[in-house]
């Protein structure tokens, strides 16, 4: 279990992490989501003890990362943004070095290295130099290094960046597999990825935690803003009259001139209410033909955009990245 309390990290005047507070429970997949430069990597670096925090503390299984670094670090496997690979070593040498660094007893070392290599499917490249491997394989070697020793918590910083679609699917499957026995925390700026794999999403923007919940709850959180859009034939007064008879509407916005002799209305119902049927029957009763009825549901994407709006405007994140 990880507890992060009131974490602050300043780089000079720049506030990278701004009073972050959260807990991570065992046995789930957590996703850090945020636009570029939101402070995801910094937070992860602090959690793993690579960086020191300006304020606040991190507890890993009750061990403070600063006061008892060795106990705390033993519970963590970490794959940083750029896999920390020694280019002049072979995969096998590298993993053995990593195992020794993690203080895995000598007897178990070769067995564990073998296991991990099978898990991430790098057995056939084990005798090649890391500098000769492709990006995808390097990423896997980095992942193998993080899994080695099977620590309770596995932290992965953008694990699928630079991989081809097939490899991405494989890595996702692997992460799901790992989550059966370990707690996995991963970060990404790609929503689809987080949505696909994670049980719990934490959205970070400007170093602040703006939302943290399960994907379903996050969608529900915003469902107050779901709307029903209609276009009805008739004058605005007639349509207003009909709309007035429908119950449970918070407010309605009218728009003329979408089509000839028709009015467009955007209806916002009260939270959790589905008014589509009612709209249909009321308009049918008044013999006012509906030309269009559509229902817009907020998706996680909207939630993400809404919550990180400020950041996106400022940083001008590439749309494709989100």
């Amino acid at each position, binding site marked *: 279990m990880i507890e992060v309390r009131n974490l602050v990290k300043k780089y000079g005047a720049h506030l990278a992490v701004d009073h972050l507070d959260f807990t991570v429970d065992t046995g789930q997949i957590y996703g850090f989501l945020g636009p570029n430069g939101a402070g995801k990597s910094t937070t992860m670096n602090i959690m*793993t003890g690579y960086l020191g925090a300006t304020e606040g503390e991190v507890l890993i299984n009750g061990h403070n990362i600063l006061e008892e670094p060795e106990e705390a*670090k033993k519970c963590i496997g970490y794959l940083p943004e750029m896999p920390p690979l020694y280019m002049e*070593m072979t995969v096998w040498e590298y993993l053995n070095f990593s195992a*020794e*660094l993690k203080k895995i007893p000598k007897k178990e070392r070769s067995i564990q290295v073998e296991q991990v290599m099978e898990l991430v499917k790098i057995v056939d490249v084990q005798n090649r130099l890391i500098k000769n491997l492709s990006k995808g394989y390097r990423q896997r070697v980095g992942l193998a290094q993080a899994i080695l020793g099977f620590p309770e918590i596995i932290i992965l910083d953008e694990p699928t960046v630079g991989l081809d679609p097939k490899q991405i699917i494989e890595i996702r499957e692997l992460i799901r597999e790992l989550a059966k026995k370990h707690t996995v925390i991963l970060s990404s700026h790609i929503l689809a990825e987080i949505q696909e794999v994670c049980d719990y999403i934490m959205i970070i923007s400007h170093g602040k935690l703006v939302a943290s919940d399960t994907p379903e709850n996050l969608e529900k959180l915003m469902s107050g803003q779901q709307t029903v859009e209609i276009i009805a034939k008739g004058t605005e007064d007639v349509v207003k009259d009909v709309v007035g008879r429908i119950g449970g509407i918070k407010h309605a916005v009218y728009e003329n001139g979408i089509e000839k002799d028709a009015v467009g209305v955007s209806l916002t119902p009260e939270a959790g209410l589905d008014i589509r049927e009612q709209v249909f029957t009321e308009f049918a009763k008044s013999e006012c033909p509906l030309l269009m009825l559509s229902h817009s549901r907020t998706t996680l994407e909207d939630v993400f955009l809404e919550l990180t709006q400020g950041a996106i405007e400022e940083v001008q994140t590439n749309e494709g990245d989100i």
Partner: protein
Amino acid sequence: MKAIYKRELKAYFQSMTGYVLIAFMVIFTGIYFMAYNLNSGYPYFSYVLMNINYILIIAVPLLTMRSFAEERKNKTDQMLLSAPVKLFDIVMGKYLAMTTVFAVPCAVFCLFPLIIKSFGTAYLKVDYLSILMFFLMGCIYIAIGMFLSSLTESQIIAAVTTFGALLLIYLWGGLIDFLPTSNVSGIIGTVVLITLLAFIIYRMTGNWIMAGITELAGVIIVTVLSFAKASLFENLLVNMMKRLYIADVFDNVAVNHLFDVSGLIMYLTVAAVFVFLTMQSIEKRRWS
């Protein structure tokens, strides 16, 4: 520590740096050995060592430049620092690996006195002691190089600054002679040193009150002393600077055949100080 030590040592011999360095040192020493001992018939190998100690200025930067700069550049330090290993073990692992590489040519040097002996009289005690001091001096240089490498991401900058620092140490004895010896210059020099100390304190702690107090106290003491006993400052600068002349201890053994224990202690202390500073510089980077 063992894991890092083994990996580092392997890296030196996989990337050829180790072989090239050892070959370079052995060949140069061999040439001097041939010229002084074999051709001129001088029976002391220590004399050769004294004359080749300038090759450390070239060899050590090549050895130390990659130690931390490369890790930082390739971000492999993330792996070391997030592994359950103490910082001391990381630094010592690397330091010992570098001294091990350096120990290889020193071990080869041990053969030279024996060659001299096979031709006649050799002064083994002096020669072996010189080799030991030569090795320890190299260890100091390596510690300095490692510290400078930990300050930067660029291996080139690490190598150049190390080269500069070692050149300064090498020329130190000659530079001291240029220092003025009068009372007034001693007073001014001391004040300059105190100011420098105050500045370092300010830079490290960011506390200008503490730096100010240090400066003020230092200046007051110097002023009082200069009125009370001005002769105290005569030659002070030269005497102070002479203490920092690292190669002096080695030269004493190699040339004058004088072994002084305080020099040995100084060597070990200076090396330890720079290992400590390396740890501090890595620690500092985590917090800024």
